[in-house]
């Protein structure tokens, strides 16, 4: 199975978090790498989705759809930080 990246799970993340999250910054609890969710390694195989750190490969997030619910495991994350407004590269 080929790896995707976090851009491909924007819809799933809206289901879980209720808002756009691909631009949110994640920090790996294992190695400390920090980058947008869009840049993380994603394996998508129904009913589960596994998100891994691009640097150390640790599992950061797992999502499983079953029986009308989405189970979410975020134990691999040290933090998630979402901007209050859409990310823009430059001010002004």
């Amino acid at each position, binding site marked *: *199975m080929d*790896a995707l990246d976090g*851009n491909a799970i*924007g819809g799933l993340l809206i289901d879980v978090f*209720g808002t756009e999250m*691909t*631009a949110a910054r994640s920090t790996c609890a294992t190695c400390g790498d920090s980058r947008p969710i*869009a840049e993380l390694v994603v394996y998508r195989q129904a009913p589960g989705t596994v998100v891994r750190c691009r640097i150390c490969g640790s599992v950061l997030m797992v999502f499983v759809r079953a029986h009308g619910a989405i189970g979410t495991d975020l134990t691999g994350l040290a933090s998630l930080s979402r901007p209050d407004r*859409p990310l*823009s590269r430059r001010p002004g």
Partner: protein
Amino acid sequence: MERTAVRGRLTWQVATVTSVTRETDSVVTIELDPPDWPGHRAGQHLDVRLTADDGYTAERSYSIASAPGEPVAITVERLESGEVSPYLTRELRAGDELELRGPIGGYFVWEPADGGPLILLAGGSGVVPLRAILRHRRRSGSQVPARLLYSARTLPDVIYRGELDQGYDRAQIIYTLTRSQPPGWTGHTGRIDQALLAEAAWAAEANPLAFICGPTSFVETAAAGLVGLGYPPEQVKTERFGATAGR
């Protein structure tokens, strides 16, 4: 800055297919008329869901091929082993219905206010969201310089070739053909490498913004190459898809 209306929930809806246009032997563009579309940004996605008679569903995320303000369209490459793309590229006809939700994504997007110059790097069908960016640049009257470096296997595999060859308001289009070239081809050949990136990309001093979309290996090579040329990693936005992505 133009923004998509904030909605509490991303809901599935049934869109009508208004046209299916063949781009290459294995690629079609599907124009859609969703009943409730809040508008999208250049580079965003939508999710498509197919449901079988027995209730089995398959979902895929596709880049939106059209610019903000244009009818919603996706461009789909057929993967013979895929669950979704064979149906979309072979069976779907104008007048059919298709379940989708969107728009989705806030990372791999470009707004005129983000500026440039833009360097867009496409591997195969990774050109789709970059075409939306080029169209948005043209429609918005943005004056930022733009270059597209497009790696395709052969010339007939180039998606949007007619449109690309007409240009986008002085955007430069550079092809490299990796598998075979037509007689008399004077363009680049072979996969993207450091030498080609150094030739095609804007100097880092120009503070360029890069968007790279394609298969994972293409994206990794291209992104590392630009960072090697001095691009700050946060100004190199990437989107990878694998063979199972159905994009």
